[in-house]
């Protein structure tokens, strides 16, 4: 009940983040139901159905990542010393986060079910009745238990992940302790060598696998009939490598930014980037990996008769949207964490424009480093497949 009351009183921007999460959950729920519809409509193509289900794991993972980011930035689960004194410690806050995540994602799942039934033609009275009846396997009964299990997947995983993420977050019992914790810097990220090695290994595996003819099909539903499993494994390795290298690269960007006799703006921008590297770097690496995947895929599939189906498009939009939203939400979290320092600087008479310039400078440096990197990885990934 407390979670619902807090939701009712929250800021429109916070509600918008939750609505975005609900939309993502609806998208994933819809994809899962479509898989179920396909499976019940085509009992003979069991392996194809399993493959479709497995592909749903990618948008599911992106949604869960976004749910965790939303839970971490939610003001209603922010540790407050006053509430800590009255017993709202880390365990209760984690529970609160899990409940509010479950509420938004369940809302999304419900919407997904309604849209699915509507497009199948099971619910009537609105435009586009049964607009995709055949495509979604209308005519065959939908197993209720299976549908509910699939719909519960997103709420359960997302709220569990959100709760666990908040459970492991340190909660300061007093204001003095909070100020003390704010002073302690985040440890410098160490994953850069591993990340670079994994990325290189992934690209190598991919190049090696695509040397021969396209065997061992692992098709994306709709299109991509001949992507070998090893190529996908290579891409996965590259993506993990980029996610691991992200924090290290961000830290390096910050270090370069504050080097050689910096003024106030460059000093603040660089040091903050160094300190926030472990927070912002990972989602940035993931966005980078997803974007490079999209670029490589678009290079591969341009000119084909039918590049991809509507469900693949929905999945791609979900993955892109969720990872980007996660990055933006994490940036917001970093900003919330630095509110105290920003207040100090403004009290000293730092112009608000200086703080803005520092933020813009940080974003620019990250763009300058990560955009060419994304492009290069995408080109390298597509090179062996097109050649």
């Amino acid at each position, binding site marked *: 009940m407390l979670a619902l009351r807090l939701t009712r009183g929250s800021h429109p921007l916070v509600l918008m983040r939750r609505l975005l999460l609900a939309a993502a959950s609806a998208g994933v729920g819809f994809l899962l139901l479509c898989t179920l519809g396909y499976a019940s409509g085509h009992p003979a193509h069991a392996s194809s159905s399993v493959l479709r289900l497995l592909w749903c794991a990618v948008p599911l993972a992106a949604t869960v990542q976004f749910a965790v980011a939303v839970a971490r930035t939610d003001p209603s689960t922010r540790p407050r010393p006053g509430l800590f004194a009255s017993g709202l410690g880390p365990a209760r806050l984690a529970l609160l986060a899990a409940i509010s995540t479950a509420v938004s994602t369940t809302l999304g799942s419900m919407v997904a079910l309604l849209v699915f039934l509507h497009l199948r033609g099971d619910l009537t009275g609105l435009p586009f009745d049964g607009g995709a009846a055949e495509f979604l396997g209308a005519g065959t009964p939908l197993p209720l238990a299976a549908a509910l299990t699939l719909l519960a997947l997103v709420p359960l995983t997302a709220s569990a992940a959100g709760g666990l993420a908040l459970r492991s977050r340190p909660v300061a019992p007093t204001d003095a302790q909070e100020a003390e914790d704010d*002073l302690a810097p985040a440890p410098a990220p160490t994953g850069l060598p591993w990340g670079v090695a994994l990325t290189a290994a992934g690209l190598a595996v991919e190049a090696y696998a695509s040397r021969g003819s396209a065997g061992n099909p692992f098709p994306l539903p709709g299109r991509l009939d001949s992507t070998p499993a090893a190529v996908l494994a290579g891409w996965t390795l590259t993506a993990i490598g980029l996610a691991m290298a992200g924090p290290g690269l961000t830290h390096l960007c910050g270090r370069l930014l504050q080097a050689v006799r910096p*003024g*106030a703006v460059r*000093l*603040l921008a660089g*040091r903050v980037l160094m300190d926030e590297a472990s927070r912002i770097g990972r989602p940035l690496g993931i966005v980078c990996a997803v974007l490079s995947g999209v670029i490589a895929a678009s290079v591969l599939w341009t000119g084909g008769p039918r590049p991809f189906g509507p469900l693949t498009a929905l999945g791609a939009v979900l993955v892109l949207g969720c990872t980007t939203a996660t990055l933006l939400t994490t940036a917001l979290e970093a900003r919330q964490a630095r509110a105290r*320092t920003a207040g*100090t600087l*403004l009290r000293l008479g730092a*112009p608000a424009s200086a703080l803005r310039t520092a933020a813009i400078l940080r974003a620019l440096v990250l763009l300058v480093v990560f955009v060419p990197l994304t492009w290069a990885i995408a080109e390298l990934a597509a090179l062996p497949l097109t050649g």
Partner: protein
Amino acid sequence: MVAPPDNDVIWARSLHHSYNGSPGLSGVSLGVRDGEVLAVTGRRGCGKTTLLNCLSGQLVPQQGEVWFNSVPVHTMGPRLREQLRRDRFGWIAAEPQLVPELSTWENAALPLLLRGVSHRAAKKAATEWLERLDIGPLARKRPHTLLQSQRQRISVARALTGSPSVIFADEPTATLHHTERTQLLRTLTTAARSHGITVVLATHDAEVAALADRVVGMLDGRRVTNVSLPAASDTEGRSACSLSV
């Protein structure tokens, strides 16, 4: 509008300020002379911090005037007040309020860096002040490795490095123990007197106020000459307890 007296560096007239209806200041007038150490004393919640915020241009009083060197502060826009704080004022709070990402000397040099002074000059000035405050060897350390008393000295060094006209110190010793308290205050007042810097010091501690040139008492948002309240009778507490609540 009456022009303020010439020998006052800061002059405030009948300041009124309330926070969303809750009273903060109700009619405080004050003159701060050039180069003096003025203590504003009173209990917690009597409006000392609000007064300092109004005088230093962080807060615009709802009624009343604040003048700095015969320039009206209460009519300035946010940008001008920001510049005034940056160029002419220093601020020391109860908490050290350091920037965690910066090292000791960078924290101390921050006011100069924000004014656009060159890196080298800012470092030189900051290091000099850190050495005068006996924290020179800590110049390269980050705040999280230091003791609270050392952090508060950095905060004092930061206020002094900008060579301001006025330093506002709001309970600067609230989080310190007794010995560190006197030492910090002596350092601050000595440095301010030798450099002709005016200090406005808010404190609830009579011992701290004794280091000032002049003391202004406050009670419930008003300026008073005698801060002591009439003594409560012995039985009041007991009779209050017998009330059914």
